[in-house]
């Protein structure tokens, strides 16, 4: 398979076909919680992209140079990856607080939320640990492949949460029966959007 095409398939598969929010329903909490305003959802999407990419990089190194040589990865991967994500988020928070206060004000409130975000753990695990991938393209990713996959997952998260926030903002001013206002309506929209995303199944043989 052509190398560029292969990267394209990995990216597209992570972004649309196995979309983390609407196909696999991982990280429903930010989908419902942070999607009431377009502005905050963009902030959350950016923060997730940033943290996810870094978490995968560090996790990949930890897996391939620490866990795998010691043959302890099979049962230690969850505590180790959580440790990595939590420490990384703390570190990033301190770093941007010092280096870029405007960025900290824009992203700061989302970073603690991401510490325990299942989407970050899921992306890191799938991109790093062999046998967790849904894509029938590879058994184990190299570092560039893992990064492309993670960016695809994060952008898939971002696209969906921003589209979702746009719809919810529009519905704020619509005459909706009182019982459906807010979260119930959000779940109904999520279901309809999810049906739409299921149309991508089997695209390009993925």
């Amino acid at each position, binding site marked *: 398979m052509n190398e560029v095409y292969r990267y394209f398939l990995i990216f597209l598969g992570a972004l649309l076909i196995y979309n983390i929010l609407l196909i696999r329903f991982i990280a429903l909490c930010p989908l419902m919680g942070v999607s009431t305003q377009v502005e905050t959802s963009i902030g959350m999407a950016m923060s997730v992209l940033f943290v996810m990419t870094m978490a995968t990089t560090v996790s990949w190194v930890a897996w391939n140079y620490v866990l795998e040589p*010691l043959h302890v990865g099979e049962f*230690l991967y969850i505590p180790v990856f959580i440790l990595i994500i939590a420490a990384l988020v703390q*570190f990033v928070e301190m*770093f941007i607080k*010092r280096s870029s206060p405007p960025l900290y004000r824009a992203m700061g409130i989302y970073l603690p939320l991401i510490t325990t975000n299942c989407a970050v753990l899921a992306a890191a695990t799938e991109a790093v640990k062999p046998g967790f991938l849904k894509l029938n393209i590879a058994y184990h990713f190299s570092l560039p492949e893992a990064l492309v996959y993670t960016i695809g997952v994060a952008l898939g998260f971002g696209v969906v949460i921003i589209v979702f926030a746009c719809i919810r903002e529009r519905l704020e001013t619509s005459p909706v029966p009182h019982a459906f206002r807010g979260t119930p309506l959000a779940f109904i929209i999520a279901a309809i959007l999810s049906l739409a995303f299921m149309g991508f199944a089997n695209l390009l043989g993925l």
Partner: protein
Amino acid sequence: MDWSIVWKAILALAGLAFLFGVLLAVASTRFQVETDPRVDEVMGAILGSNCGACGYPGCQPAAEAVVAGTAPVDVCVAGGRAVAEAVARVMGISLEMRERGVALVHCKGGLSESVPKALYQGISSCAAADKIAGGGKACSYGCLGLGTCKDTCPVNAIIIDPEHRRWVDRERCTGCGLCAEACPRGLIEIVPRHQEVLVVCNSGDKGGRAKRICSVACTGCKKCEKVCEADAIHVEDNLARIDYEKCTACGDCIEVCPTDVIVRVVPVKGSKKQQPVSARDL
């Protein structure tokens, strides 16, 4: 049993944890930001629910403003006196309690008092109605009755009855002023809590027209101005206004007002027990 896997697991996890621990410890000293420790203390004193009633985007910016001296110590309106005292202790200054105001909607006209000019069926939002030829009411100053203030109120102190009249639960109202900002017609004023006599109209129309389009409009007749002994009420631009500093709450103006635009309300005091206030106290 092969114990080596156990040692390896402990070694791997402990090693990584140690590595990240050292990294974070170094980072926390290396990237330390010089912040005023009082900001954290103020943060601990205020409620910290990020309600936004103070007008700042959240509790952290409010705490920073207090320490910077740009916000008063009783910035946390939701917290009330106890929180203000705690913040004052952190800041090391004595507490001068600013009297919290209470919201007043300067319009009495509901569906049966105000003459309509059109039937508004658009988006249920005052700002939208105001943009489309000024909504359904003939009065271009009065309340549109679609409840943007009610939706904005963080403590549910504004009630809208089926006649589209607004009632402020003066006991619940914290005087945060969010409704005053939200109202596209600028109808809502935060008035002093002790003020008993209030003018409840915003009409700038001349007497004849005001009377024609609303049965509870200030016509600018100046009867109140003439009767007031304290020189507290004046008609400017066809609308009576009370100077709250001078008003003695004698009630003479209420007697003479031909359209009942001037009303007396029960003043709101501190404790809820002393002051049973009905929602109908405008």
